[in-house]
């Protein structure tokens, strides 16, 4: 059936020639500008698909496009260019001593900002994203520092770490195993003595403890522990010995954990970050950690 195109008398427009039950359809073509815009978008799509990555391939990957663009590369380029633009500050940080940086608000805030991202990348796995620490990994926000909480002390610790074989690392004293273990056959303290020591530590921290055990524990503490932890259990940052009367515990302050710590000993480690990061980044970390809330 050949379409019968006729002119509609009412509107003066042509019909499409289609007819259903006497109803005819007016031929109302799309406006030219619309049509050309539509063609332009098709053309754009073709050019785009040729120029940019567009189609996944059945054997994996995708078409790469002639312009060889990739978001990954763009990010890499951004990182490289910001590294270039930050280079003066990095060089300045590396060559300036801590006090001078602390006195220069612009440089200091650059250090803190850079330290924040370096912390998230390097330190957060152990110390927590907020520096809150976890069992065995010190909380950096409290006021108890194993190796000191001033800016130079923090810088020292970040640079050389703890008990890691670096020549300048904090060696301190490893807390020995006081109880009988497979590793330390010559038993120093028996289970009852360790129990009394734990009771004594509880009493130092205002926790309920058996009074006679506390008396025995105090004598044992004076005999064995004061060398490192101090006469009043105030700790010693030269040895990395924590205060034991502060109510802040690295491994836990309940009785069973205290017994475990005394029996088996403790001795945490931390990498020397100067071996892994550049000097400016290590300084930035020190500034960031110092201002997190615990710095002295």
């Amino acid at each position, binding site marked *: 059936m050949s379409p019968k195109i006729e002119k509609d008398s009412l509107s*003066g427009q042509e019909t499409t020639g289609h007819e259903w039950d006497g109803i005819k359809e007016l031929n109302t073509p799309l406006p030219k500008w619309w049509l050309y815009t539509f063609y332009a978008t098709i053309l754009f799509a073709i050019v785009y698909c040729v120029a940019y990555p567009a189609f996944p391939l059945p054997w994996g990957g995708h078409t790469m496009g002639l312009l060889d663009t990739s978001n990954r590369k763009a990010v890499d380029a951004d990182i490289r260019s910001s590294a270039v633009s930050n280079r003066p500050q990095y060089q300045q940080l590396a060559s300036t001593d801590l006090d001078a940086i602390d006195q220069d608000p612009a440089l200091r805030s650059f250090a803190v900002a850079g330290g924040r991202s370096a912390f998230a990348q390097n330190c957060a796995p152990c110390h927590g994203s907020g520096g809150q620490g976890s069992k065995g990994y010190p909380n950096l926000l409290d006021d108890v520092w194993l190796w000191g909480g001033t800016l130079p002390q923090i810088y020292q610790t970040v640079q050389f770490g703890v008990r890691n074989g670096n020549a300048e690392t904090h060696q301190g004293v490893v807390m020995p195993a006081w109880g009988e273990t497979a590793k330390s056959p010559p038993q120093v303290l028996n289970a009852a003595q360790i129990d009394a020591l734990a009771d004594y530590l509880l009493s130092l921290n205002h926790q309920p403890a058996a009074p006679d055990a506390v008396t025995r524990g105090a004598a044992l503490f004076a005999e064995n522990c004061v060398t490192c932890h101090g006469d009043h259990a105030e700790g010693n940052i030269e040895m990395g010995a924590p205060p034991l009367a502060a109510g802040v515990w690295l491994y836990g302050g309940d009785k069973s954990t205290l017994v475990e710590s005394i029996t088996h000993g403790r001795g945490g480690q931390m990498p020397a970050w100067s071996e892994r990061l550049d000097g400016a980044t290590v300084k930035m970390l020190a500034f960031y950690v110092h201002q997190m809330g615990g710095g002295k």
Partner: protein
Amino acid sequence: MTRVTPSAPENETASLYEAHRKVYPRAVYGRFRRLKWVVMAVCLTFFYLAPLLRWSRGPDAPGQAILIDLAGRRVYLFGLEFWPQEIYFVTGIMVLAMLLLFLATALFGRVWCGYACPQTVWTDLFVMVERWVEGDRMQRIRLDRAPWTLQKLGKKLVKHGIWLVIAAGSGCAFVGWYVDAPSLTWKLLHFEAPLTDLGFIALLTTTTYLLGGIAREQVCIYMCPWPRIQSALLDEQSRVVSYQAWRGEPRGKLADPASGDCIDCLACVQVCPTGIDIRDGHQLACIDCSLCVDACDAMMHKVGFAPGLIRWESFTGQTQRAAGLPAEWRPVRPRTVLYALVIVAVAGVMLSAMVMRQPLKATVQHDRIPLYVPISGDRLKNGYVLKLSNLTRRPQQVMVHADTPLDIALAVAGDQERPSGNHLVLTAEPDGQTTYHVMAILPKDALSAASTPLTLVLSTAAIPEIRITDHFFAPEPH
């Protein structure tokens, strides 16, 4: 645009897509035309010259009275200075503008469209130039029909040249609202203007030229959403430009005794900037500019009839006139009263917010990780990020204390070796935001719940206290 005629003759064609008909508005003289010139002059003067107004704010701040400083993230309005945080003032101004538009429309129809809309103002200006270069309606029609000659080319070039100059001037003035206008002028004259400014000048030049010179009434009829909702805002009491059909019909020759007052001279159609026939009734394309009123009144005067065959009249008024009654108009009616009340309410809220506006703003955000830190001496520490926004250009000393009976100590991070008790003095740096990491320290046994409300009170010499309530978190009590 589809024209709705009550009784369409058999042979009239109804088009679904109307081909573009160029409109050649004829010159017209009269009181509404004069009013339109005045409004146009005021609007354009304000637009072009407002950026040149100066306002002294001291050495560190821009000296432009009205400046939308996008790069500096400030809006300056004479003595007022708005920060991005106060964007709600812009929302308020927009809501207010919308309500004013509603009220004006309910009372007088589309006066905004006819007189003050930038589209109308620039179109009017461009048509004025066109008339000045090419002559009035008939000369322009003849010129467009005539074959291309050097003279025609010359006229067209002059017209488009002047249009482009006006458009470029508008582009520069527009950018002058966003950057310092005098230095922009200086830079433009020395070919030193930054690329961003030039880009926006080019953009605004193009849009002004296209919308004001080429598209004109098409913008009002096809692009603008306002005509689509006007019928929701008009009622039978709104005064709109209307043809008094009861008096004019049947239209016919002046000599014909059987015909009405309309002598079918088409003056109203020829002066119309959107090219419509107002005698078809109120319609979507009518912008209520009332140039047809001027044209018709002049003609009525010439033939000795009473003026007002086309006039500002409500539908009710027209019906009353048709029935021989005096036309009455009720501007006070529930719709307009409601609009006015809402306008007063919104303006009141904005004004009071403006008056109560303090030169110091503060926010407190509790540290998220961790919520609390146990520290030596059986105490707990909570950290808060305190941000002080100093809206003035001199430093402010802010005293912070916690409104609590507990034995609390406040300190700034890094300083807690020297806890200051329940008292901190912080400096809010001028014209900016200063961030402090504030620590609050409480004895463990002072807390009975995992979360205790804690109110920080900030005060300076200049402002009333700012009270911000947050929480002090502690381990779940056993």
